[in-house]
């Protein structure tokens, strides 16, 4: 037979139906296998996802940081910052201390700053602003100065900022003195290709939010601010200086912005390299010192194990690898916590929403050895590095988890853990949906189960989810209004008990008011299927937008997806324990909610709407699944 005929034979149906029957049987077998292993597949997705979370801090998953943009060339310049500039900063500091001790008002402080900027010959002005929120009002006055670049037309700008209040809550006197000294020093040089904008913002993050909103022409409803009298181009980079102590031992990098936004990693890496090699300062993430924990002694309750216990403590508990794991986990957990809650870790956080790469250089308070000299040197070098930029930093460098100042995880190494859990939810949802479409009729005569199709109650299932989200929307509208402000101020939880109990227990009962349905198909599994689909649709796309948030949802999804339909009051109450309304029980929780309302209305941080429109409804839908009796 010729090869051509042989190939033709392959595509020809065989004379009998054997081949088709075999194919059909194989197909059915595959479907049956998928159906039967899908619960295990779902659990496997969850288990691997959870294990992956614990694997994230391992050094093997990460890699050391590097500078992606070749134009930056960090630490390649000779700096000019010297003791004369340190002296200038000290003089400013003395005057600032007088202002602080004299309880100077915002207006007086800003006026003084304006005077100093004017003395340096930089165009300057002040900006008063007021934020009106349901939990109170805040007024403040910012001082700013714009230095035009001597080399270019001022199409781009760099911001050097300090807020009056440090992220520790103390006055940021040395940070402000540093900005003034830098203004006097940097404007003497001609190598700037970007305009330099010096901002001393009032308050903590609110002053900078007011300044940037006005600068970019955004007018949030809660803000009334004076217009800016000076102007520059697009701001590319911002460095905020936070120096609350007397001296500092480490330079802490704070970088998490509002709503989980991050600056480009190159800015962080440059700050780390320059801090280390130009400034000679050890660089850390946040306020976590880069030391491994001390060896743990074997505790009294484990003494009886003798040699075995000692071996465990020596080889496992005090193993260097475990200590390193803990150190990395701590760094990442802090980053994840800022990102998931949507709060900014410093003044830099309000910049990111305007596509500005910004970080805070935090001088960790200590008795020594560093001061204005090293901080000025490294700031100068960092600004000159960012001045080299000819185009924006590359887009792929916004997705990272930093495990230490010099090592990080790429998106591909951490993303799978939440995506896997999302896929697990999807598998569960698909299985539920398919199963709901069939009903088994067991016939004793034939000793066989016959499967017949039945209509699903999809509309009703979606209806339950929509109804509970609407209840969440009502709660949100209430929490966002002035009505809800007084209860937060309550000193004890007792007057709030009715609110808490209503929020935790009542809304799921909405499903009992549903109209009677003519179909006999069960509703509870349908609601659960809808819940699983919505979880899958939330977790997977969110993982690229804000990975820690999607991880939190993924962890929340596991108990929700293991709830059995119509399982009664016990799981109902257990799920109630996951309700965010329980924060109202304790003072710190009430403060956190108050802060959340403030952050939402002033800064636009999503904590409040997220809790009301996502977290509450998800728990309620889970509770409704327990509640519905067929």
């Amino acid at each position, binding site marked *: 037979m010729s090869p051509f005929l042989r190939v033709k034979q392959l595509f020809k149906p065989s004379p009998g139906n054997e081949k*088709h029957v075999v194919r059909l049987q194989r197909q059915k077998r595959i479907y049956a296998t998928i159906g039967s292993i899908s619960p295990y597949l779902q659990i496997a997705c969850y288990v691997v996802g959870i294990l992956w979370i614990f694997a994230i801090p391992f050094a093997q998953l990460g890699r050391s940081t590097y500078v992606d943009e070749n134009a930056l060339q960090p630490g390649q310049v000779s700096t000019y910052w010297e003791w004369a500039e340190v002296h200038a900063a000290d003089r400013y500091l003395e005057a600032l201390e007088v202002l602080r001790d004299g309880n100077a008002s915002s207006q007086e402080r800003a006026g003084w700053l304006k005077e100093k900027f004017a003395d340096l010959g930089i165009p300057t002005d002040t900006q008063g602003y007021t934020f009106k929120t349901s939990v109170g009002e805040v007024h403040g006055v910012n001082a700013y100065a714009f230095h035009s670049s001597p080399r270019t037309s001022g199409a781009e700008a760099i911001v050097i900022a300090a807020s009056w209040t440090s992220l520790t809550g103390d006055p940021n006197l040395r940070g402000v003195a540093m900005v003034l000294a830098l203004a006097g020093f940097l404007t003497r040089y001609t190598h700037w290709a970007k305009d330099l904008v010096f901002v001393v913002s009032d308050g903590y993050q609110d002053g900078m939010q007011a300044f940037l909103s006005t600068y970019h022409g955004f007018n949030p409803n809660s803000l009334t601010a004076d217009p800016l009298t000076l102007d520059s181009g697009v701001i590319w980079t911002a460095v905020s200086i936070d120096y609350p102590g007397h001296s500092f031992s480490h330079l802490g990098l704070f970088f998490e912005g509002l709503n989980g936004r991050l600056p480009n990693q190159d800015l962080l890496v440059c700050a780390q390299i320059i801090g280390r090699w130009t400034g000679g300062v050890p660089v850390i993430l946040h306020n976590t010192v880069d030391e491994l924990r001390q060896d743990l002694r074997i505790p009294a309750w484990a003494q009886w194990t003798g040699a075995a216990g000692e071996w465990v403590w020596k080889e496992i508990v005090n193993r260097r690898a475990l200590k390193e794991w803990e150190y990395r986990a701590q760094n990442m957990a802090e980053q994840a916590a800022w990102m998931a809650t949507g709060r900014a870790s410093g003044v830099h956080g309000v910049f990111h929403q305007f*596509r500005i790469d910004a970080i805070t250089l935090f001088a960790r308070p200590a008795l020594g050895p560093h001061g204005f000299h090293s901080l000025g040197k490294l700031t100068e070098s960092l600004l000159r590095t960012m001045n080299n930029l000819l185009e924006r930093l590359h887009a792929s460098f916004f997705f990272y988890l930093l495990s230490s100042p010099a090592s990080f995880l790429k998106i591909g190494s951490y993303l799978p853990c939440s995506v896997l859990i999302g896929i697990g939810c999807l598998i569960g949802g698909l299985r539920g949906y398919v199963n709901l479409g069939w009903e088994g009729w067991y016939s004793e005569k034939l000793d066989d189960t016959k499967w017949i199709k039945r209509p699903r109650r999809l509309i009703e299932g979606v209806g339950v989810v929509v109804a509970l989200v609407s209840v969440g929307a009502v709660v949100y509208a209430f929490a966002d209004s002035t009505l809800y402000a007084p209860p937060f101020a309550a000193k004890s939880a007792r007057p709030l008990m009715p609110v808490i109990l209503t929020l935790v227990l009542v809304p799921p009962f909405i499903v009992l008011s549903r109209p009677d349905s003519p179909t006999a198909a069960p509703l509870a599994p349908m609601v659960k299927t809808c819940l699983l689909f919505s979880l899958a649709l939330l977790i997977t796309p969110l993982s690229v937008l804000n990975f820690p948030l999607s991880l939190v949802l993924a962890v929340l999804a596991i108990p929700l997806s293991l709830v059995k339909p119509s399982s009664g009051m016990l799981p109902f109450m257990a799920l109630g324990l996951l309700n965010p309304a329980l924060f109202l029980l304790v003072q710190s929780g009430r403060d956190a909610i108050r802060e959340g309302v403030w952050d939402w209305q002033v800064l636009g941080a999503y904590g409040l709407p997220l809790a009301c429109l996502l977290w509450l409804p998800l728990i309620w839908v889970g509770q409704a699944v327990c509640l519905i009796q067929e």
Partner: protein
Amino acid sequence: MPIRLPGALKGRSALLIPAFLLLLRFGLILSPLSPWLRDDHQLASPLTSFTRLKEGVWLFQNGIDPYHGGVFRHSPLTLALFSTVIPPIPLVSAFVWTAADGISAWSLLEIWRARISPKTDPAGGLMLASLYLANPYNFAPTIALSTSSLDNSLLLLALRFTVLQRASPAVLLLALLSFSSLPSVLLLAPLVMIILSGSRSATTIPEIDLKKAVRVVAEFAVYMAAFVGASTFVAGSWGWVLQTWGATVMLPDLTPNPGLWWYFFTEMFDHYRPFFLLTFSLHPLIYVAPICLKFQHDPLFAFFLLQGIISTFKSYPTLSDAGLYVSLIGLFPELYPYFRHPLVTGLLHLHAAVLLPLFHYLWLDAGTGNANFFYASTLVFGLANGATIVDSLWAGLRSTIGEKEGWDVVQL
């Protein structure tokens, strides 16, 4: 005293849903949401953007040829309409776009009635019309005042006249449509078939009245010629041909859209461009003959499939193209039991609907992603549309065989 039937009462109150959806549109077009969405790449392409239309009208009224330069790509007929009868001001446009969507929904209802005996399911047609109006793929482009919504209503109105066997208005509208959306010309073949053999599925292949077919096609050609003449008269030169029809084929404007062309041609070396432009443009042509031949017994279904192929593969699609195709599935309820993978298709569409705006935001607003992100989501969208076409094709072929206890269809 006339007795009101319970069914009639139910029907009347069911009219409230489309009425509410239309009112909602009207309100939202006048709200600040509309200007905010107007230049969104997923809702308005360079060929359908309202901003560009306004620009063109302004240039035209100030005596500057709008087709000179690369901004204005609407057809001269649209230009004539919006520079004379309908000024592009908010209140008037809100009214026009709402009315257009109303016409679309009403046409869809009429088509449904012609296709399916309304006695069996009196509320079904209204449900379909409401779903059309509620579908975010149709809803959002209307809010953004994208002229793709007007194209959709032209197409549905043309189809309505077709299924009612009124050939002249049908081909007139199709000719009009092909001025704003060139690929729709391909729909002429199934349209003529519907005129010849009706909108319902037949059990035998109907006899074709060739003379009538030629007459209808000739009528179409006459309308086309007349419109070309009118366009040239309006535009004052032949410049419009390259700027409107030419743009569809040669893709001069690489503004992102949810379609499959823009990224491919962004990455293309210039010397390969003509070849691939030719391939991409001619590619939809190859479907016309096989689909029309295979579905001779059901030309409306052939129309539906071709519309899906056009909306997936056209050079400047918006979400409303996919929205129209998805809504048309409602005309064929007999296919529902025969879909092979409806769940997968549905999930693909759902994920595309989430990923498209998300990655668009990451690329162009947050600046943390790049073009590849959005491109990936348009691929998911393309996959979803492709899966819809393949699945409907299978179901269309499969439904002709029917069900028999204990038997399975292995091959079509």
